[in-house]
C-alpha cells in the first residue's frame, strides 16, 4: 500500500476550515479519490459529524491539557498509519487553529491556511507563521465584502507570502471548492512523513502551569517564566494621587 498524500489544514477558529474542506473533499470523491480526515481539537468538536455526513472515515484527536499543535505532531505517524489502513489516497488533518504562535506545517505535506476575508485587514500580518509557511492560502467569505476589498486582501496575503497559491472558496455555496480540489490533486504529493521537519519551531512549554500548577503568583512559578515589560508610569501630582487613593478606597 502506498503512503497517503498528506494535507495539513490550519487557520483561526471559525475561519471556515471544515466547510471549505468538505466542499473540496466532495469534489475529490466525485473523482473517486479516497480521503480520510483527522480532526484535532482541544476540548470538544462536532466537526467530525459533518465529515461523516459526506461519508469519509474520520478520527478525532482531543488534546485536552496540552497544546493541540504539539499533540498533532506527536500523533502524526499514527494518523498516517490509520489513513493507510483506511486505504486513503489523501489524508486531511484539520488542526485546532488557536493561538497563532505555531504553524503545524511540515516540509513533506501540503500546508493549507484558511482565513476569513471578513476579519481585519491586519489578519495576514497577525497570524504570522501559519500564513508565511503555507503552500496554499484559502480565503473564505469573500462574497460578502466589496470586490475591491477582496483584491486588497489578496494583495496583502501575496505580499506576506509571495509563494502561496491563493484560492477563494465560499464555505456556504461551495463555490471555489473544485479549484481547491484541483490544487490538492496537483500539489499534495505521496511522501514519507517520518524524518520530515516542522516548517516553524513550536514554542517551549516548560513553565509550572504547563505542569498543572493552578495557583496564581510569582512565588508559585518555576521554569521558563518570562515577565512582561511595561511602559514607564508618569509621576502623579499630589492631588492626583489623593484622588486615585480615594477611588481605591471606594472599590
Amino acid at each position, binding site marked *: 500500500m502506498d503512503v497517503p498524500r498528506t494535507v495539513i489544514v490550519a487557520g483561526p477558529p471559525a475561519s471556515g476550515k471544515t466547510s471549505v474542506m468538505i466542499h473540496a473533499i466532495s469534489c475529490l470523491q466525485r473523482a473517486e479519490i479516497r480521503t480520510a480526515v483527522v480532526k484535532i481539537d482541544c476540548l470538544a468538536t462536532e466537526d467530525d459529524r459533518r465529515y461523516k455526513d459526506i461519508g469519509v472515515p474520520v478520527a478525532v484527536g482531543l488534546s485536552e491539557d496540552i497544546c493541540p499543535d504539539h499533540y498533532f505532531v506527536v500523533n502524526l505517524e499514527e494518523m498516517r498509519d490509520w489513513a493507510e489502513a483506511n486505504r486513503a489516497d489523501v489524508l486531511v488533518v484539520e488542526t485546532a487553529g488557536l493561538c497563532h504562535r505555531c504553524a503545524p506545517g511540515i516540509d513533506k505535506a501540503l500546508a493549507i491556511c484558511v482565513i476569513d476575508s471578513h476579519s*481585519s485587514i491586519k489578519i495576514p500580518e497577525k497570524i504570522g507563521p501559519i500564513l508565511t509557511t503555507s503552500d496554499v492560502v484559502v480565503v473564505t467569505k469573500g*462574497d460578502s*465584502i466589496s*470586490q*475591491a476589498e477582496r*483584491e486588497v486582501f489578496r494583495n496583502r496575503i501575496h505580499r506576506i507570502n509571495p509563494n502561496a497559491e491563493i484560492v477563494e472558496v465560499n464555505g456556504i455555496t461551495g463555490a471555489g471548492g473544485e*479549484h481547491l480540489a484541483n*490544487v490538492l490533486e496537483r500539489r499534495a504529493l505521496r511522501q514519507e512523513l517520518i524524518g520530515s521537519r516542522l516548517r516553524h519551531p513550536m514554542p517551549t512549554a516548560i513553565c509550572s502551569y504547563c505542569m498543572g500548577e493552578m495557583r496564581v503568583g510569582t512565588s508559585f512559578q518555576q521554569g521558563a517564566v518570562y515577565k512582561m515589560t511595561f511602559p514607564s508610569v508618569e509621576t502623579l501630582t499630589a492631588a492626583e494621587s489623593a484622588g486615585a487613593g480615594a477611588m481605591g478606597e471606594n472599590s
Partner: protein
Amino acid sequence: MISTVSILAGRDKSGNPERVERLDISGGQIYSIVGFTGSGKSQLIGDIEQMAQGDTVTGRSILINGKAPNPEIRFHPESKLVAQLSQNMNFALEMTVMEFLGLHAECRGFAADETSLKTVLDSANSLAGEALKPADVLTRLSGGQSRALMIADVAHISNSPIILIDEVENAGIDRRCALDLLTGRGKIVLIVTHDPQLALLGERRVVMKNGGMDCVLERSEGEIKAEEILGRYTKTLAEVQEKLRSGERVEPEIFEAMEVIRA
C-alpha cells in the same frame, strides 16, 4: 482582449438539459437575467465568475473568446477578468474612503494620485443621494453611499472586461447613471435583477426557470418605449419618496403626469 463570453448549457434542477444550449455574449452588450426567486439567476452569475468547466452543480462550461480558459486565467483572479457587485457585499475595512481608493488603485498597479482618486469619488457622488467625503470611514457609510462607491470603484479602478451585477437596485442610487458608468468601454455586462426598468435596460434578457436558462428574449421596439415610460413612472415615484422623506404631504395630483403617459 476579451471579445466574447460563451455559456454552454448544463442541467436544470431536475437534471434536464437547459433549453438554451449556448449563449454568446459580446463586448459592449448588456444582458439582464430575470426569473423568480430560486430560479437560478445567481448561480448563472456564479458559474461565469468561476469560469465553470462542467465542474459546478449546473455542469455549465464557460468559454472566453470561444475557448476554454486556461487554468492560469481561471484560477488566478490577478488576471482580473471579472468584477462583481452584489446585494450581499459590504465594506469591512476600517479606513477612510480616500485611503481605501488609494490602496485599491495600488493593488491594480496604477498611480494613485489625488486627481484620479477624486474622479472616482466624484463619480460615486453623482450616484449617491448624500455626498461622500474623502475622510468618511468606509464601515460607517450608508447603504446607498456604499453601493455608489462600489460601483464607481468597479467602473474606474477595477476596470475588468466582464462585470457581473447581482440585484443592486435597492440602495437608492440612480440606476440608469450607474449602468451608464459601468457599461462604457466595450464591457460585457450581466445584471441579475427584479427591477423592471433595469431588466428592460438589457438589450437581451435571459429568462431563468428551475435552475436552467429557459429562453433569451431580444428587447423589442415596444419594450424600448416601455422602458422610457417606466423611467417616467420611476421619476414620479422618486418624487413621492422625496416628499415623504422631507416630511411633506402627498396629494393624488402628483400622479397626474402618469395619467398623461397612459393616454
